[in-house]
């Protein structure tokens, strides 16, 4: 069996292994990968986001450990130090000798550190790996009190990323750039000027057009001397002045290298030795090195194709860039600097709106060559795909402010236009996947074509393409309603109907079902229609809501009293223990910091609640599609590291949102410091204390597809925080689909998290007042659902085992003992269905 050895395990190496394994189902190739870092390939493009969570898992690339794949051997922490091309072997630092039939060099780049005196001092760092960030963090935390400062050398893309990371760590960053503007490679003077102004507003000091002459140690601090005479007194320095290809292995083994470095390869990514390939940032394809991931991915695919017997060559690379720097959109694509002969520039610099947009077109003004967008890059995807093609309208009209301009639609794109540049997927390929392979959802398109699976910026275009192909993504709730849940919510809110029978007779058909009835019941409950078992509502509820407890597999129920924030007195603990003992209930601590009591029959439920309610407990809504718990760590009251009172806030939030009926369950968390012991970023909304206030993260969940919540607002005070969560929840409750949790809801919002922020922070739709009023009404109208049953004989009467023999226990429910507690005995073993 031939062996391919891969030297390096970064994003491009991982893509190569994935592509090879996908094309080589029979396992013709044995793959041996040597990775220098201690962990498998991770999403280095998103490195800066590591600061949000300090969790390396958040950067993990799916499948990059090749678990369960016998054809791939991944050797981490083992770097290739030499290649013997004659013997066809590589040798690692540990002395291991590995033969190869084909060798793929994917050694990436090293940060470029210019020869500035003092660059070796403690407190001077580079910005490339998770370990680099860990080291920067350790240094940032080691310093004394007060606002600390840091200097970033390099004002390009990476330098601004580093500045953002430092700012997120609570330091005041200075950015020093040699060129007269920020991001000199990507943007022009106009864009750079606006970018500088927007970045400066974010507490970053920018120094352009100056060198760094020396760094000197000054006690525990560093003194940086700039070429323009400025002296900066900082705690640490980060070099991010570009990268250089790591071509040492090639040089030492006699392979050709490019004039400006990089392993020289042809368009098939082959080096001067036909058994050796180079891909990614270490490769110089026909002399040119690419420092971004998309061309690297293309190289990986090219080599994988050749090893599996197909010919392929490196396509015209797309070096377009779009990123969000500290909330500022920056994008450039094509010939952004108008280098083409006769190229014309059309620019709109709107200082008031904070946007700069430039298109570069041919001398006749009809063909798009490139462009720069700063402040608002909404049209990036369509414009980028139009490069080299006739413009659908006059360039000036395309740049006009939204609403007045000629929008570029997906229809305007030719089939060859790349919609997903990360994975090189054209509009034509997507259209074929929709019309020929039957992909009828964004999810299926992603799985089938890989489009939208890397940076995700083209996802909105995928949905538009589906629509353009006539694929109706039905939002109909069920066979009884053609409307979506969001539409029904608005209908019920506007018409003020209060019963399901009225809703189904006016806006639906038939008598309803187990899908639409609970959905309408939830909407009625959110809009405040009294107790959820009141009026005609009881028969609409799923069994959990109908019996205000969680049905278990033998038909018995479990009971969860609310323990806000997980804080409980010994007296209350004793009440729970006594109730569990008296009713013979199995007890377990839940993941949400409360206690679940299992094995109650329908007729026991009110008796159990009465004991709990008398002791001051209330329903914990463990059964509802509603707020479950707000988990908290112990916070600044006890914890040595806590910076805010996380328990106090968690209790306030849990009491504020208790009982709020929603499309799906809502879980929340509050952590008292960045160590994040409450795992708030795994929640629908998570709050993490900072020294200046709170950071709010939204859209996280555990479950089958875990997701980390993303930062919505940072360093806000408690009042702003609560107002923002109010709006977030109310907007979600009103507009999400049935059983759609917050993560997919945000993902499907047109514009995603940015749109959400615009709506609930900047009030772009003018609905915040209404959302605030709706939440105020909820908070004011809350009552305990258990107490509501206990105080109403009619409702109580429904809690009996048998309508003709109340008090007779259900003979089908029985228990046996395990680990000193009772567990259900099942009658027959059901096949668990999904």
């Amino acid at each position: 069996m031939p062996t391919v050895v891969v030297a390096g395990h970064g994003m491009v190496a991982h893509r190569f292994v994935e592509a090879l394994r996908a094309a080589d189902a029979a396992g013709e190739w044995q793959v041996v990968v040597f990775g220098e870092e201690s962990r498998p390939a991770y999403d280095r493009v998103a490195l800066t986001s590591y600061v949000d969570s300090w969790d390396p898992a958040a950067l993990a690339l799916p499948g990059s450990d090749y678990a369960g794949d016998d054809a791939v051997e991944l050797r981490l922490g083992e770097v290739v130090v030499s290649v013997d091309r004659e013997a066809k072997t590589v040798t690692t630092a540990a002395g291991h000798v590995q033969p190869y039939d084909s060798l793929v060099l994917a050694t990436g780049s090293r940060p470029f550190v210019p020869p500035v005196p003092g660059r070796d001092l403690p407190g001077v760092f580079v910005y490339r790996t998770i370990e680099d960030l860990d080291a920067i963090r350790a240094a940032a935390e080691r310093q004394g009190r007060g606002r600390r400062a840091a200097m970033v050398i390099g004002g390009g893309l990476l330098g601004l990323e580093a500045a953002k990371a430092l700012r997120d760590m609570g330091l005041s960053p200075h950015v020093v750039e040699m060129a007269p503007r920020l991001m000199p490679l990507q943007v022009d003077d106009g864009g750079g000027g606006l970018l500088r102004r927007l970045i400066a507003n974010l507490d970053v000091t920018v120094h352009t057009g100056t060198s760094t002459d020396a760094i000197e140690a000054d006690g525990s601090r560093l003194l940086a001397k700039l070429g323009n005479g400025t002296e900066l007194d900082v705690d640490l320095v980060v070099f991010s002045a570009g990268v250089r290809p790591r071509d040492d292995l090639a040089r030492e083994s006699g392979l050709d290298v490019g004039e400006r470095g990089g392993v020289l390869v042809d368009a098939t990514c082959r080096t001067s030795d036909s058994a050796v390939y180079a891909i990614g940032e270490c490769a110089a394809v026909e002399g040119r090195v690419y420092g971004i991931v998309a061309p690297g991915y293309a190289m990986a695919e090219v080599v994988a194709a050749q090893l599996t017997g197909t010919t392929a060559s490196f396509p015209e690379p797309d070096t377009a860039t779009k990123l969000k720097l500290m909330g500022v959109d920056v994008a450039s694509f094509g010939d952004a600097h108008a280098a083409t002969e006769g190229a014309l520039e059309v620019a709109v610099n709107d200082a008031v709106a904070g946007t700069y947009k430039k298109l570069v077109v041919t001398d006749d003004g009809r063909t798009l060559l490139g462009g720069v967008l700063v402040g608002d890059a909404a049209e990036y995807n369509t414009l980028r795909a139009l490069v080299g093609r006739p413009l659908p309208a006059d360039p000036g009209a395309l740049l006009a402010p939204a609403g007045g301009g000629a929008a570029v639609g997906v229809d305007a794109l030719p089939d060859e236009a790349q919609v997903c540049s990360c994975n090189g997927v054209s509009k034509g390929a997507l259209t074929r996947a929709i019309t020929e392979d039957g992909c009828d959802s964004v999810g299926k398109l992603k799985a089938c074509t890989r489009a939208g699976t890397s940076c995700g910026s083209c996802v909105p275009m995928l949905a538009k393409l589906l629509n353009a192909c006539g694929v109706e993504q039905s939002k109909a709730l069920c066979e009884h309603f053609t409307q979506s849940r969001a539409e029904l919510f608005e209908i019920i809110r506007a018409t003020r109907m209060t019963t399901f029978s009225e809703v189904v007779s006016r806006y639906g058909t038939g008598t309803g079902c187990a899908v639409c009835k609970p959905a309408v019941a939830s909407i009625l409950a959110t809009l405040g229609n009294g107790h959820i078992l009141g009026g005609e509502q009881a028969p609409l509820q799923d069994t959990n809501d109908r019996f205000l407890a969680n049905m278990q597999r033998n038909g018995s129920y479990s009971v969860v009293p609310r323990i806000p924030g997980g804080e409980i007195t010994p007296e209350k603990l004793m009440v729970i223990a006594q109730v569990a003992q008296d009713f013979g209930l199995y007890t377990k601590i839940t993941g949400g910091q409360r206690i679940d009591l299992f094995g109650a029959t329908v007729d026991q439920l009110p008796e159990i609640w009465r004991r709990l309610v008398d002791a001051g407990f209330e329903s914990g809504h463990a059964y509802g599609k509603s707020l479950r718990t707000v988990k908290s760590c112990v916070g600044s009251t006890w914890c040595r590291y806590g910076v805010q009172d996380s328990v106090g806030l968690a209790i306030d939030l849990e009491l504020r949102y208790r009982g709020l009926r929603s499309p799906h369950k809502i879980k929340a968390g509050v952590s008292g410091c960045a160590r994040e012991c409450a795992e708030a970023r795994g929640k629908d909304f998570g709050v993490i204390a900072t020294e200046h206030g709170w950071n709010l993260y939204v859209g996280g969940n555990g479950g089958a597809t875990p997701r980390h919540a993303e930062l919505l607002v940072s360093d806000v005070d408690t009042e702003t925080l609560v107002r923002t969560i109010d709006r977030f929840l109310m907007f979600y409750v009103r507009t999400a689909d049935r059983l759609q949790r917050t993560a997919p809801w945000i993902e499907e919002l047109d514009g995603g998290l940015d749109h959400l922020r615009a709506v609930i922070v900047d009030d772009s739709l003018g609905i915040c007042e209404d959302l605030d009023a709706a939440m105020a009404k909820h908070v004011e109208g809350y009552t305990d659902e258990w107490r509501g049953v206990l105080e109403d004989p009619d409702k109580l009467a429904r809690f009996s085992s048998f309508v003709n023999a109340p008090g007779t226990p259900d003979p089908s429910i029985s228990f046996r003992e395990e680990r000193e507690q009772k567990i259900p005995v099942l009658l027959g073993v059901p096949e668990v269905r999904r």
Partner: protein
Amino acid sequence: MTMTSSWTAVCAAADIPEFSGAAALVDGQQVAVFHAGEGWYALSNWDPCSGAAVLSRGIVGDARGEPVVASPVYKERFSLRSGQCLDADEVSVPVYPVRVRDGVIEVGSP
């Protein structure tokens, strides 16, 4: 119409609201009695898909006009008329005769 010899009175019709069900003990068997708007139905309370006696606690509605109850455990739907499971051909539950006399619901032998 039905050839049942013995009827058991289980409760007043008013005890089971429209589009809901209740469990009753009939000759030691658990029976789920449903009020489906247009009429009354009775099935075995035992849900063969989960092994729990819970069908009376399911949501009552219709599937393309056929009155159904959805099991509260895994949501399989059963025809109230025939006991046939609409989501698994090989599964069905026994059907009981049911009638209302003078406002009282009576369930017969299957």
